[in-house]
């Protein structure tokens, strides 16, 4: 044991924690469970409303099956550890098994609309994914972005207004990225040009945007709602064939244009960041700007570019709040999504893939909570609501694995002044 590296020690600790949780879950959900009723999962297969499949399973049996799945995840974790790889895949399987067994125990005698649960989770994740992509673009190049909330809110605000004035959601979607970019411009000028502390400036920008949008909302959008705040919203587009895939098809491929844009953006960022010249330069500037500068990369220009790009991305995400769902804007409608997106970025260890998984997890936990509240559950919903936040604290505390930000994240760069 003594000759393990710190990283391996943490992995051992993580595996032991998973093991303990599994044993506890077996005791609580299986051996000691007094639930005798069965649970019904509803799936939408193929066309909505047409093919509804149900899967009925006894509470105890279901919990047992999924806990075996968890143990399988644990086994994979052990193999991953032996193979000196990160415990990503195994944690996912373990988490899935644990959550499902919990569900079997908690919702005994109830009906869980499984497809609806997934659809709702994705809907809640969408702005988080856009937000964390915005944070990622900034932070990979070394600029901390606390202003994600401001970017999302400003874009939601502008896209709502533009869509209402033109009565055309396309124009709203066109305007939204520019609103996000405007906030980015503020961040970039203060953080890069004036070298103001990035955490502080991001924070102040958020207050500014919350105040400004709130002001205009009360002054114009409430009073002259007909003109300023009654925009249309996008309707879903069903993609042929793909939307027919069982379970995930209706979830992933019957969405609005904003969601399809999100798929493209995430994939492009994931590939570009690790395969393109721009990606290499971005990472170099974020890790070691001095070295990047010495080979002729204009550090601050690249950072400026990335921060602006981040604004565009967050802007599309902001549009989701208004024209992507309800159409009209309400005060502080982003409700802290920007901060959760930031947490997701850190939770996902500053990688696009990780951030997406984290956002999906947050969305799932949030939606699971509301589903369980609707079907009526013994556990107070407030504690379910806390789960994503507690999970983030656990994640950043390094129980699961150490997270490390890009080395130069948050440090303004100027030549001769490291």
């Amino acid at each position, binding site marked *: 044991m003594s000759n393990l590296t710190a990283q391996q020690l943490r992995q051992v600790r993580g595996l032991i924690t998973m093991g303990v949780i599994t044993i506890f879950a077996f005791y609580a959900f299986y051996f000691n469970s007094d639930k005798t009723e069965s649970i019904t999962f509803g799936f939408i297969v193929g066309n909505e409303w047409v093919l509804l499949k149900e899967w009925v399973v006894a509470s105890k049996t279901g919990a047992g099956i999924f806990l075996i799945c968890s143990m399988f995840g644990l086994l994979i974790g052990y193999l991953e550890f032996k193979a000196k790889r990160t415990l990503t895949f195994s944690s996912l399987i373990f988490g899935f098994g644990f959550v499902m067994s919990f569900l079997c125990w908690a919702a005994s005698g109830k009906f869980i609309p499984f497809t609806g649960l997934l659809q709702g989770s994705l809907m809640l994740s969408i702005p988080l994914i856009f937000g964390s992509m915005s944070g990622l673009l900034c932070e990979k190049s070394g600029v901390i972005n606390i202003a994600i909330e401001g970017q999302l809110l400003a874009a939601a605000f502008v896209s709502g207004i533009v869509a209402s004035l033109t009565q055309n959601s396309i124009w709203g979607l066109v305007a939204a990225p520019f609103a996000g970019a405007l906030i980015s411009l503020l961040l970039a000028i203060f953080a890069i040009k004036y070298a103001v502390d990035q955490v502080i400036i991001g924070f102040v920008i958020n*207050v500014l945007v919350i105040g400004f949008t709130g*002001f205009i909302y009360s002054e114009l959008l409430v009073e002259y709602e007909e003109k300023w705040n009654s925009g249309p919203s996008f309707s879903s587009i069903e993609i042929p064939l793909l939307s027919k895939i069982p379970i995930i098809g209706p979830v992933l491929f019957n969405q609005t244009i904003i969601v399809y844009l999100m798929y493209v953006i995430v994939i492009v960022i994931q590939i570009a960041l690790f395969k393109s010249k721009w990606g290499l330069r971005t990472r170099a500037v974020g890790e070691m700007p001095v070295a990047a500068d010495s080979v002729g990369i204009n550090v601050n220009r690249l950072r400026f570019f990335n921060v602006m790009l981040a604004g565009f991305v967050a802007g599309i995400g902001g549009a989701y709040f208004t024209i992507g769902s309800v159409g009209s804007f309400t005060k502080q409608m982003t409700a802290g999504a920007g901060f959760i997106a930031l947490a997701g970025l*850190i939770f996902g260890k500053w990688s696009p893939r990780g951030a997406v998984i984290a956002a999906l997890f947050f969305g799932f936990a949030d939606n699971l909570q509301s589903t369980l509240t609707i079907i009526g559950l013994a556990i107070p919903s407030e504690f379910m609501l806390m789960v994503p936040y507690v999970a983030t604290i656990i994640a950043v505390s390094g129980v699961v694995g150490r997270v490390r930000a890009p080395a130069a994240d948050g440090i303004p760069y100027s030549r001769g002044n490291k």
Partner: protein
Amino acid sequence: MNLIQKIKKNVLIPFFAFIFAFFIGGLVIVFSDPEVMSNLKSPSKFLTTALSKIGNSYLAVFQGSIFDINLARGESFFKGFYPLSETIVTATPLILTGLAVTLAFRSGLFNIGAQGQFIFGAIGASYVGFHFDLPPVIHPIVAIITGVFLAGIYGGIVGLLKAKTGAHEVIVTIMLNYIAGFFILWVLKTSVFLRPGRIDPLAPEVNPNSRLSQFLGEDLRIHVGIFIALAAALFVWWLLKKSTLGFKFRAVGANANAARSAGISIAFVTTSTMVLCGGLAGLGGAVHVLGTEYALTNNIGGSLGFDAITVALLGGAAPLGTVIAALLFAALRTGGTTLQSNTGTPAEIIQVIQALIVLFIAAPALIKGIFRLKQSSTDKTLTAKGWNG
């Protein structure tokens, strides 16, 4: 830094920041008002309506926060200061939460968690306040100590996690704010905190014995909490300037590596700073419940967490500055309410102005560039450490 430079830095820049923020705030008020904008065709009419709109708005802010001539004429001159009393009532928790952020800044920590710590302080004080029956004087003291203790632990978690695992305080405090928000929602639903006969999230009022006295009579809501807040500011000043512990705090804040080489335990400083910060914010929560609100509600924290940070930034992370900034912001806040009711201009404009003030203060280079003030080499803006710091 000589005296003139000091005055320039501490007076001139905030002054210009205020002027600027109010100027931009005025533009926002004018350009968002369809009535004023409808006069755009004739410049002179537009200018007069615009100026009168701005004038009326800012006059309402003054009337609502310092002195109301109508109240003074109506009853007594003394009564005219009712708004000032309200300003001080608003400032009291703001001073304490602001200090919680200020103290953290000086140790190189960015405490966004004042909100959560405030909530725990309020919960503790409220529970002791309504659940027990203790003699006067002792009751509020016990209630305050309970609140401070709970909040101190809540803040301490942040410091401990940072010290032991390197978890960044910004992210942890943001998360803990949400957790505290959900926690108070839950607490208010429990049978202990539910007011008999009610089903909405509202705790019983604290016992009269535990309330902080309104020393200027029942008409004015000002209570002894302001003296507690000022004493706390004095304590923070003493701690930072005169005590060994405070020296360690500042050493770590200025240069953690150097401090470590000098034998100061960073882990100890981080944890104790956050415990103290939590305690200060919790004191704010306790004082707010015992002096102003009496009953715990789920919205007791309001936007205090955000306001506390803007106050600390405006105050230059110094105790005296924080007190002054808190009073100023409280005046704007209370004035904002009057602004909304008297002129119909939404109170959110105050939030815009506050953010602008801090924006200009956080970026001295900008203001200096605009006003062509001389750049001094000793200028150091506030900094929070990046994720790896």
